[in-house]
């Protein structure tokens, strides 16, 4: 997608927002320019702190889920026997909307930073696990034969074949699940915390009734999701250039 098209889409959405705001003419939908002005004032102050708290939670969950799901997916993709044992479990757990586990995770881990990170981790973990496992399983045997014939053992295959073959799957999984991860982040930040964008949005929307600040929080959360999505896409292009080359 061209940046030019993205810019036009962004301006179009702002225009729609402005039109709705003029039609509604109520505090609950302030005009976009006012929200943007408040956003830029707040982001260097209180809102910035909440943004960083949320960013830390997503990045910690992302790192943890990639570190655990990618090797697990690679191992399951390589070993039919292990996959046969774990596949039914993954099959049952994968489609469960992880957000319903919020109360259970909080009961077990307490209302703290760890439970919030674990919730987002659960969403990303299964997505990465399944995509990496499927990718590792479809690597052509001829490719493995040819690299083994060059002298590769298990470690060599992992470094030169399995990992690069699965890297696009990892980045695709991150991109696909970032929206859900940020949505769950919002939910977990509503519960017993004073830091994070979820808390900020809820506080200004339902307690202080300052809707302009609430919208500034919504923009910050959207930017968090968008920023991570674009970062994953940028990494994909940077680390997997062969997928974007024209024949």
């Amino acid at each position, binding site marked *: 997608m061209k940046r030019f098209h993205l810019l036009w889409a962004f301006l179009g959405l702002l225009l729609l927002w402005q039109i709705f705001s003029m039609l509604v003419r109520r505090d609950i939908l302030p005009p976009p320019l006012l929200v943007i002005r408040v956003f830029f004032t707040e982001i260097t102050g209180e809102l910035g702190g909440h943004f960083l708290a949320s960013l830390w939670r997503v990045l910690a969950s992302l790192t943890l889920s990639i570190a655990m799901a990618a090797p697990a997916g690679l191992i399951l993709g390589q070993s039919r026997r292990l996959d046969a044992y774990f596949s039914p479990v993954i099959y049952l757990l994968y489609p469960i909307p992880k957000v319903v586990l919020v109360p259970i995770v909080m009961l077990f881990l307490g209302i703290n930073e760890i439970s919030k990170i674990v919730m987002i981790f659960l969403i990303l973990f299964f997505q990465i696990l399944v995509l990496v496992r499927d990718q590792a399983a479809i690597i*052509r045997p*001829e*490719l493995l*034969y*040819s*690299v*083994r*014939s*060059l*002298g*590769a*053992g298990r*470690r*060599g295959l992992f*470094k*030169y*074949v399995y990992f*690069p*073959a699965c*890297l696009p799957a990892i980045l695709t999984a991150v991109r696909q699940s970032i929206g859900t991860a940020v949505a769950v982040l919002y939910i977990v930040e509503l519960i017993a915390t004073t830091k994070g964008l979820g808390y900020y949005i809820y506080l200004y929307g339902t307690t202080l009734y300052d809707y302009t600040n609430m919208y500034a929080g919504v923009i910050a959360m959207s930017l968090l999701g968008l920023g991570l999505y674009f970062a994953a896409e940028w990494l994909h292009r940077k680390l*997997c*250039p*062969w997928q974007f*080359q*024209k*024949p």
Partner: protein
Amino acid sequence: MIQVASITFRYGKQQPIFKDFSWQTETGQTWAVIGASGCGKSTLLYLLAGLLQPATGQILINRTAVACPRPQTGLILQDYGLLPWATLRHNITLGLDLRRFYGPDGKHSPVEMMPEDINFKVNRWLDQLGIADVADKYPGQVSGGQRQRAAIARTLVLEPDLLLLDEPFASLDAPTRENLQNLVLHLHTERLLTSVLVTHTIEEAVYIGERILILKQQTNFKPRIIDNPYAGIMPPVQSDGYQTLTGMIREELRESAQ
């Protein structure tokens, strides 16, 4: 060079492909292995490469049993076996990178491995095989012939003493195929490589193989070997000798398929 000593091999519970099968080659010979689909041509190559193991019997190369892929054996496959995520240059250095990765352990790389200028060696093969100008492209960006040249360069840069080729030219157009067949013959005479080429084309088997091994579709007990005086020369297709030879191979293949 190669000694296949009374091997038995089968996939799962299927009928054995080889049973008590023995066969041997001399150093510097070129062999063509021909047979109908499913007769075990590629299986034989994978056994020689150490990628598969016989249930009984053993395979010796230079009097050493092959228990795993040996560093001095080069394998070239029909679908090139190139890493799609690496440029042709990086694909060609892959074997050398693996040798550096493992060190001279005798299993993944030769014990007498010398420190070498990888760039110099790779550039030489890129030039020799005419793919220097596409060296920094990915396999998906170049033609089938260029991919197969890269696969050949990747194997030859490791200076193998045995070259195994599994229908390497099957998916190429006729001029590219002839060009690469000549390249293999040239390498054979220049480097005295022992090579085993699997093919399903009688003409290719006759052009490349000094000796031709015919495999049967049923279990192979004894090798059927034909000496080929036309290897490396392009005889007039109408010549009696050539016609007799190809006719004989055709007849053998027909019989073995029944």
